């Protein structure tokens, strides 16, 4: 009975999506917003990466909502799994795993911060770089399961980053502009320090995403090993 209902639902869904995509002409997007953003983004926001201009400049409130969803997911995950327990029963990894983790840690840190800081110029940004930062802090934990991340520091970093994001948005509000409107001088197009407050916003996003994912991953890992 359940399979029959599933087949019927799936058939309807596929038919609906097929009809929808049939009306689209592939390769010629009908949306005019994208073209308008391509024309005006340089003067409005000043970021070379137009996706960053959309994420932080035109739809900054949306990004704040996204951050709060991620925060809620991380909080709920911590609530479900409970406090991370110290004193794992797993043995530490071998020499190669430990040395590899030590070797990769600074490289991942540099790559993550690079991706975060160049988010307004090149493909990348706070979310992608934040995930790399989380991987940098999670990798030594895989090599040495007996150690734990300091969740106090992680929550301090996460809270400060979230506060900074909202504070920059409020600053724009106090200057008579819209919430999270791009602030400061646009600078020279293509420079690292340019496009106003966007690099600061992306730095806050990167730190927040990185600390949230790192704490979530370490909780998952420390709880998973209790069952096995």
């Amino acid at each position: 009975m359940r399979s029959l209902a599933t087949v019927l639902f799936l058939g309807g869904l596929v038919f609906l999506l097929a009809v929808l995509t049939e009306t689209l002409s592939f390769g010629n997007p009908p949306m005019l917003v994208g073209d308008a953003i391509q024309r005006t983004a340089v003067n409005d926001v000043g970021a070379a990466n137009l996706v960053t201009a959309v994420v932080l400049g035109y739809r900054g409130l949306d990004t704040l909502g996204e951050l709060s969803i991620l925060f809620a997911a991380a909080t709920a995950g911590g609530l479900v799994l409970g406090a991370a327990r110290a004193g794992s029963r797993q043995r530490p990894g071998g020499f190669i795993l430990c040395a590899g983790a030590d070797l990769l840690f600074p490289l991942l840190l540099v790559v993550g911060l690079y991706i975060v800081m160049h988010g307004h110029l090149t493909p990348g940004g706070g979310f992608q770089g934040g995930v790399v930062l989380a991987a940098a802090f999670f990798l030594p934990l895989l090599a040495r399961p007996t150690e734990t991340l300091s969740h106090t520091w992680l929550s301090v970093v996460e809270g400060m980053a979230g506060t900074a994001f909202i504070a920059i948005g409020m600053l724009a509000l106090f200057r008579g502009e819209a919430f999270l409107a791009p602030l400061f001088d646009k600078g020279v197009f293509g420079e690292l320090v340019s496009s106003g407050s966007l690099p600061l916003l992306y730095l806050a996003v990167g730190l927040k995403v990185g600390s949230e994912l790192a704490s979530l991953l370490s909780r998952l890992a420390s709880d998973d090993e209790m069952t096995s």
Partner: protein
Amino acid sequence: MNTSIGLVFFVGAIGLTAIGIAGMVLSNHLFRMVLALAIAEAGANLLLILAGFRWDAVAPILSNSEVAQSMVDPVPQAMVLTAIVIGVGVQALALSLVIRVRQRYGTLDMQEARQRMQDDLDAAAGVTPSRSRQQPAGERLLPVPDATVETGGRHD
């Protein structure tokens, strides 16, 4: 040629979504349901990205060159960036719930976990399990009437 490539892309995206939803509904294994959710999300994201595709266009990153190139639509890409991050959060939450279920009931099979959960609930509430095969629903013991209620009137 062009339309056939578009057909392949669209069929792939819709197919991924359909496979993911079918896996979520038909599978009885909790971890496989989480994986199916990830597949369905990938299909939906691919569909969104395809909506902003443009022929002979470059990634939406401006350069200093004066030659104006056509670019793909940046708005669906920003939306998919949002969707991916939210998907990661949802999957992490689902995985933590799965871990808890495994710790509590020792199984990842949904039927079995649900049955043990129902047993736990029945035991905590102090009632006989209603779906017991030894005691079909018609022959269940009726709740014993509370004696103090009936004898309450003869106290004085």
